[in-house]
């Protein structure tokens, strides 16, 4: 790292910015981000202003005066350059501090023991000049300003990462991470001790063995992840919005007009078939592209007992390093489409991952189910919660799957009836219900077969859903509280939805339609009875580094 000591600024920051507890008197020099960012910032700003600039050039060619556009773009470039000039950071013994802003200077100060993960994100632009963004996930990064170091030379990253994660070893404040029982004193002595361990960590980082088993051939599962369908739906929504709010802009476009004309000449059955084929093909291609771009070269490895690394990406690469003691469980995702081809994907449920990951970390992209199970149990350190037999929820829960499916069909029928009354629907469309009703029944049965839960020592397992089936394994030590929710119909059936709340992942994990007594038994077991000793033994066999 190119470091420029700026002695005077340290004091002015204390005066103008927020107070930085514990680091006031620290003489650690402030460091700047890599100067190569001076190349990245202008290009990035220009890309951002590209549409406006293109419009300006077009307008200029017909005699307009688009000078303000150039001024605006130039201003953007200057702001980008200023961002580099005004950002500096330092890592003291106790805190990580980032100072930014030109007019409103602010200093963000985070205690190092709060650091949970380091996420290295390298866009194509960054990679061209040999840089990456280092994002630091803290224990409170939900909805809070993250610590981002935009522009660190790739060669510096292992050192910086080790330096940032060094604080984890000294974390002794969190009562729920029983393994950090021996907090090291945070004084000058620990810095030298940490310094050696930092370089040791950087060395060890490369040592771990990849256990993901990812292969290029896994891209064949991409179309079944339905990410392509999601993209198409988003595009359709955008197109409809143009159509409705911009006065039919879409139908006025010549290419759309030609397409509609051509479609009008084709008989309806062929049109529907051709449309379906085109849509499926488009969704598959999009899903494939997204899969290859984000998950190519997927690797996951452990450098020591508590540090997990995940790296993936083709053009934009990401590497996450995290403190495994923040792991609160895993989720095995088997949506219907993936299950049909024997595939699954795995997420780790963690705290302190940073905003853009929402507490979920992909530890295995869509791939063969066996590989998913292997990785999930390796991350968990235990295969039993993933394979154990689940407790069923009884005949009333079974019946409720069908009544809910029937309600869905009834709503659809009511909507169709209304559409027909208003003259939007051809009577022949009712034949679709010949397919919808059996499909709803099959769905209900599959939802029933997926429904189940288990309470193992130290682990709560829940599985539900059909189209988006998930099996979630949650450490009971990470469960903060419970919500027992009962709708009117659930009360009549003696059922409840038990929701475990946690600070990790999606923050809420539910067991739907569980018999109410069983719900209370689980809450009781988890919150009252589980002795701490059992939890320690079961939850942290490999991760316990306490003497």
């Amino acid at each position, binding site marked *: 790292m190119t470091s420029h000591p700026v002695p005077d600024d340290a004091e002015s920051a204390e005066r103008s910015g927020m107070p930085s507890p514990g680091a006031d008197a620290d003489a650690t020099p402030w460091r700047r981000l890599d100067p190569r960012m001076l190349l990245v910032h202008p290009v990035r700003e220009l890309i951002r202003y590209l549409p406006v600039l293109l419009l300006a050039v077009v307008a200029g060619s017909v005699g307009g005066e688009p000078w303000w556009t150039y001024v605006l773009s130039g201003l953007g470039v200057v702001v980008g350059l200023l961002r580099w000039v005004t950002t500096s950071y330092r890592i003291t013994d106790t805190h990580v501090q980032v100072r930014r802003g030109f007019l409103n200077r602010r200093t963000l100060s985070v205690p190092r023991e709060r650091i949970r993960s380091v996420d290295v994100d390298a866009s194509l632009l960054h990679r061209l000049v040999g840089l990456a963004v280092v994002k630091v996930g803290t224990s409170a990064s939900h909805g809070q300003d993250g610590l981002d170091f935009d522009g660190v030379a790739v060669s510096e990253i292992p050192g910086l990462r080790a330096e940032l994660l060094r604080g984890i070893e000294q974390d002794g404040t969190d009562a729920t991470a029983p393994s950090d029982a021996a907090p090291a004193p945070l004084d000058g002595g620990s810095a030298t001790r940490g310094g050696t361990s930092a370089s040791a960590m950087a060395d060890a980082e490369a040592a771990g063995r990849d256990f993901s088993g990812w292969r290029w051939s896994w891209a064949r599962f991409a179309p079944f992840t339905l990410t392509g369908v999601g993209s198409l739906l988003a595009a359709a929504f955008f197109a409809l919005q143009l159509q409705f709010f911009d006065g039919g802009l879409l139908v006025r476009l010549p290419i759309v007009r030609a397409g509609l004309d051509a479609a009008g000449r084709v008989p309806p059955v062929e049109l529907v078939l051709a449309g379906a084929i085109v849509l499926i093909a488009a969704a598959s291609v999009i899903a494939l592209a997204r899969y290859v771009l984000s998950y190519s070269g997927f690797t996951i490895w452990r450098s020591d007992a508590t540090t997990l690394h995940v790296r993936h990406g083709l053009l934009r690469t990401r590497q996450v390093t995290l403190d495994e003691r*923040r792991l609160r469980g895993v989720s095995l995702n088997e949506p219907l489409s993936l299950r049909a081809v024997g595939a699954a994907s795995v997420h780790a449920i963690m705290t302190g991952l940073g905003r853009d990951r929402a507490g979920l970390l992909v530890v295995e992209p869509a791939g063969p189910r066996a590989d998913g199970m292997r990785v999930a149990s390796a991350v968990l350190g235990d295969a039993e919660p993933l394979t154990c037999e689940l407790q069923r929820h009884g005949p009333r829960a079974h019946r409720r799957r069908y009544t809910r499916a029937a309600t869905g069909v009834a709503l659809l029928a009511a909507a169709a009836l209304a559409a027909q009354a208003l003259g939007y629907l051809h009577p022949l469309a009712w034949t679709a219900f010949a397919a919808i009703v059996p499909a709803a029944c099959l769905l209900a049965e599959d939802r029933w077969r997926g429904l189940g839960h288990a309470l193992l020592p130290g682990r709560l397992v829940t599985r539900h859903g059909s189209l988006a089936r998930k099996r979630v394994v949650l450490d009971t*030590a990470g469960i903060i509280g419970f919500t027992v929710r009962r709708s009117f119909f659930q009360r009549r059936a003696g059922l409840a939805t038990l929701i475990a709340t946690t600070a990790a992942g999606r923050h809420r994990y539910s067991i739907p339609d569980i018999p109410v007594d069983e719900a209370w038994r689980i809450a009781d077991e988890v*919150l009252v009875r589980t002795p701490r000793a059992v939890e320690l033994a079961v939850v942290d066999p490999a991760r316990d580094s306490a003497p």
Partner: protein
Amino acid sequence: MTASESTGRIALLVREPSGRPSPRAVPFWTWNAIVGWVVFACLQLAWMLIANAWSSPPHLGGLALTALVAVVHVSVMPRWRYRVHRWEITDDAVCVRSGWLTQETRVAPIARLQTVDSRRGFLHRIYGLTTVTVTTASSAGALSIHALDDAVARDVVAALTAVAQQTPGDAT
């Protein structure tokens, strides 16, 4: 600090909390619901005004439906809610039951509380009521004790704030 506080374990799980909201909660919820329905009806009337559809059957039907649902809601909901709402703070846990058609019971160990927040809106102040909300490290784990008597709420806030400060460790 005891072991139960630092680990988030509790001694006893309360299924049926004993505390009730203030009796003034019933008129409070009634007026709250009335205000909501009046706003909704005004929006419907504004739509009719803009569309100039004073005699159109769908609009009049919609208005009649709103009136019907509003009357049922306003007459049933507050009493039902009062029967359901319960709260209790034991030595090591907070337990709250709320709702009416859909009922929820929430439990959180006191060791997991992060912030204690009391809220008094305009209508709350008229009836001398306070809603106390405690949050945990989980965004899905907040507990609200609705429509407490002001004096009771002050005691609750004081007690909860005192224990919330004592206990580090919030399961992050």
